[in-house]
């Protein structure tokens, strides 16, 4: 499995724990999935989701970077091993 696929698979593990996620939504998650629209998360739910990912990936993503994340692909890019630890 390539690094980016591995990252997306770990992101999906966290999405699975979010309230109201159905197998149908989970099955459709791709790098193009829009976090707000396709996962139906409000702005605070997005921040909580990313907080959990920061814990899982043992990293820190500052809120100004969070503000620029729209898709699962964007998220994977900041969580990828080479960029993880700190994204400022």
């Amino acid at each position: 499995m390539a690094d980016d696929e591995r990252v997306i698979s770990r992101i999906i593990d966290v999405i699975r724990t979010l309230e109201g996620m159905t197998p149908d939504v989970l099955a459709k998650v791709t790098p193009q999935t829009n976090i707000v629209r396709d996962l139906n998360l409000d702005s605070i739910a997005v921040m909580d989701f990313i907080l959990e990912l920061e814990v899982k990936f043992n990293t820190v993503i500052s809120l100004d970077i969070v503000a620029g994340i729209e898709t699962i692909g964007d998220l994977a890019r900041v969580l990828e091993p080479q960029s993880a630890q700190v994204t400022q």
Partner: protein
Amino acid sequence: MLAKYEHLKQAYARVRDERQDPFNVHFEKISSPTQGIVNGRPVLLLGTNNYLGLTFDASCVAKATEALRLEGTGTTGSRTANGTYSGHKMLEQKIADFFGRAAAMLFTTGYQANLGMLTALAGREDHLLLDADSHASIYDGARLSEASVTRFRHNDPDDLFRRLRILADLPGDKLIVVEGIYSMLGDIAPLKEIAAVKRETGAYLLVDEAHSLGVLGEHGRGLAEQAGVENDVDFIVGTFSKSLGSIGGFCVSDMPDFDVLRLASRAYMFTASLPPSVTASVTQALEVLVAKPGLRSDLERNAARLYDGLAKAGFLLGPTVSPIVSIRFDSPEIAVVFWNKLLALGIYANLALPPATPGRQSLLRSSVSAAHTSAEIEFAIKTITTVGIELGVVQHAREAFLPAAQ
């Protein structure tokens, strides 16, 4: 121009009863710290954060009236432009002495205190670490600062430590921001453990004691006093609009050169300063807080009584007994109906709905006052329980726990 708020408008319309708007209640009269008139009928005030009940304290009213007569209704500008009044100096000295700190700065509201402090303290290279459940004023201050901002899991010192360790090698100061009592569920920060993280990592620590000033600690100095970690707290922020019964905010600190912030904090520099009547009543309220420790025991007793009464009736509450007692609901619809029924039965509490609530819960939030009588607390427990049974929120009447009717 306002089309972007359509979703907000629709959400708002869903919670508004035909007769009553939960977020715009009109009190035709406020008669005491615990009683008001809504729609021509008396209501018990159970959601006003008037923890010590000082809004009608005769000595505070007298001092405010005297200042109003002697010095007028307002300062008409900022202290930077219009100068400092004796009342400002006196209150700064008083609040610094109360906390045993070298210096204090006043702000015109508690919101501005967080805005003014966070923007001035945290610069471009610095890092702010905010508890995830922080008040909007903390988020707004963080957003306006040029610092990197990260949220840590609510009340989780381990997650805070993990983040500080990752940031350790980066340049810039690290400032941890937490609250004494969190305003939605009334839960309390694990400040001893957070202070230990701060010591170990060399970060700075700011505690917002908005809801804990006058409430926690043997002398009412808040959570830092209660947890025995005042020496670890670099900045205490708070408000005069809750336990001290007026309006305004402050920050106290022992930091050398603290006064330079008067030239760096825009929320201090570019807004009108507190009027003389306010500084006078707050100065007096601090005297009362010190002179009457019994107010804190009354508050503690009332909080425990309401919390225990509602817990025994079967309501799902916050994790800690504190003057903020919130009932958690599964759905916003039930919370809205519950809130309306309570108001119709003569109780005003707060309705708090997602997304502005922790964990997206819907809350009926009460805040207890030292000024509530035992009869008022019993009335609240009985009425809330009756509505809970009627709406099926609590399953059955447990008469043993219901106080006698008034």
